[in-house]
């Protein structure tokens, strides 16, 4: 099967994300990349745990003074939902329904954006209310690095999905771009996976002390 070929419902394969050799390679390579990312985030988590509440003087805020449950809960719900919406998008991709796929991807992007917005609000809040900054303590550095790395992944994921949507808006699905959509959605889920650990390890465990 050539990647450029125009497809129909009938010719569209069951697993468009790995129908060509290039697609198979991309699929596998991307998973391996995620394996590496796991170590990357684990290192960041490990550092965060080692440096949690490590501040130079007693007047610095600690994790238990910092985090607020409602905001984190909202962010979590948004991100989890966006995971579902991107699954919907892939469902439509497999059914060769380009319009619906774009629609659900669009919703995913909106959810992602609102997550990012909340995160920016959150950081801003910490900086101005608590003087908890990247440079104020080792705790600050570790916190912003871990959560910020995740945030940067969200931002990158959004750019990626948006550019895919725009680039292919006129062209519809093909075996050339299906793997791209698929890997982008894998990436998006992976961001969600990381967030599950962030809200558990950073926020919830931070609140219990």
């Amino acid at each position, binding site marked *: 099967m050539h990647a450029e070929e125009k497809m129909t419902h009938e010719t569209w394969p069951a697993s468009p994300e790995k129908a060509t050799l290039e697609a198979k390679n991309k699929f596998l*390579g991307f998973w391996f*990349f995620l394996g590496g990312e796991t170590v990357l985030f684990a*290192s960041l988590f490990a*550092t965060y745990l*080692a*440096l949690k509440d490590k501040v*130079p003087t007693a007047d610095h805020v600690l994790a238990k003074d910092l985090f607020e449950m409602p905001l984190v809960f909202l962010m979590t719900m948004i991100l989890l939902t966006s995971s579902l919406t991107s699954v919907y998008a892939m469902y439509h991709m497999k059914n060769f329904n380009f319009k619906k796929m774009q629609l659900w991807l669009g919703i995913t992007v909106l959810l992602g954006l609102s997550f990012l917005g909340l995160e920016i609000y959150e950081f801003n809040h910490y900086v101005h209310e608590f003087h908890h900054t*990247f440079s104020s303590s080792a705790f600050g550095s570790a916190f912003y690095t871990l959560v910020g790395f995740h945030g940067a992944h969200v931002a990158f994921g959004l750019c990626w999905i948006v550019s895919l949507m725009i680039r292919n808006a006129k062209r519809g699905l093909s075996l050339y771009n299906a793997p791209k959509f698929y890997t982008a959605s894998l990436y998006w889920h992976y961001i969600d996976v990381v967030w599950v650990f962030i809200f558990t390890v950073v926020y919830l465990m931070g609140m219990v002390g």
Partner: protein
Amino acid sequence: MSTNAQKKGFGAVLWDYLTTVDHKKIAILYLIAGGIFFILGGLEAMIIRIQLAIPDNNFVSAGFYNEVLTMHGTTMIFLAAMPLLFAFMNAVVPLQIGARDVAFPFLNSLGFWLFFFGGVFLNLSWFLGGAPDAGWTSYASLSLASEGHGIDFYSLGLQISGFGTLIAGINFLVTIINMRAPGMTYMRMPLFTWTTFVASALILFAFPALTVGIFFLTFDRLFGSNFFDPTMGGNTVIWEHLFWIFGHPEVYILILPAFGIFSDIISTFSRKRLFGYSSMVFATVLIGFLGFMVWAHHMFTTGLGPIANAIFAVATMAIAVPTGIKIFNWLFTMWGGSIKFTTPMLYAVAFVPSFVMGGVTGVMLAAAPADYQYHDSYFVVAHFHYVIIGGVVLSLLAATHFYWPKMFGTMLNEFLGKITFWLFLIGFHLTFFIQHFLGLMGMPRRIFTFLPNQGLEIGNLVSSIGAFFMAVATIILLINIVITSVKNVKVGNDPWGDGRTLEWAIASPPPYYNFKQLPLVRGLDPYWIEKMEGKKEMTPAEPLGDIHMPNGSFIPFMISLGLFIAAFGAMYRLDYGWGLPVLIIGLVITFGSMFVRSIKDDHGYHIHKEELMDDDDNKGVKA
């Protein structure tokens, strides 16, 4: 796009190499760049040995010595040994598994250029205010205290080239999983392919830890974070852990491919299949696995406590078992074989006892309480040069001779090759054997000079003399290369006559599309099998058809260049106003190029059947 056009002229060749995505050309790029860095690192080693030849020497100053020492270690590990291994992996592995190309030709080229620009960036430090001077391990308290921009060159340079390595690793993993020719099952893969596979997996899991560590270091120095600053709650031991979580697997990333190269050479020139093939594979995987659980043996004296030290000591010792399996399997591959002492085989043969000597001192180091004495002494220097030079460098020299005909279509001179071998080997043992004793006699490592009357004079002198032998050997190798290239006598598919694996079933150098028809693999050592049945070439596994080829691209160069520029901006941001704009411009170039890549369709092109039929096997790309 004309596929067979043989371009001429220097500019055209240069452009060809700047944009190439062909694994064989990328291999040559790695070989050249890695070779240059090896000579650079070697020159730095010579400076070290000259300075230490006599006590109280002042050939170089203390500060400069630390720069030389740091750059020697960093260059050799990151910019010489690893890229040179990548050179041979690129040149050989796709052929060994009967693939058209690697899985991601574009990323392959990106990986190279990232490494290259990272390396160039690191070395520019010599001209821009001083090189890094905190050792290749760059322990945090010292690397934060170090003045000037040396350490910034280290952190940014390694970050860039580290991305390149990571990409190369993923590429090999996918290539080996997805691109094998029909019949090439996992348990029929040559050992070099297997070790490449495992080493790539180690890269995938080890480099992220380095990425994170270096990120912290960069940000502590340039962007005001406090990861390693104890007065702000930070902790320098974090750096030590992250560095060694990467660093220990790194040494296996170096040695495993070397093991693979030797496995292939030994079985080739013994004319015997590898003894205990499946246990060799198993041992490789086990070494890779255990390699992640032992990092703290570099930190026995950090004060981790007896429990941690005891656990890591025992875990470390365990690695001797799979390595021993390999050693004995090599010996028994030769046992009952028909050994021909070609230059590559000489290296392989010399490797076995040399590496065992280095390996067993490793196990001695693993005995934690004894390591309190060895640590940071010349005993450790002796250990790791024994394993690295006795293992990795010998394998690189062996592979240079072994695969030269496959990469360039012409044989290196055997006589000169043997001279290189003997000089290098004698020099190597002369230099490093005595260092064990220097260490035991109380000589710490990383000292720019030593005082007289402490019993260290003779040992150091002997060691320095040995280094000159290695330098002469290297120079003879270079002469050999020049002579050979000038003569340029072409050779056939299987110039050694004893080739066993698929790469010897194809022209030297192979045509740019590799196998015209994918070969059918019928067992371990497929080419040997066919030869034993009296055939000259492989049975094809498919009818002749169009071949899909990737387009060349200049984008990898641009992505890497952008990061290179951005690194300058990041570094000088605090000193000069132009820093920040340059940082941004660099990032724009990088991300812009990535964006172009992702929106511009690149479907490659096809070589048509007819063209292939005209193309006789000898007409490959000119190297």
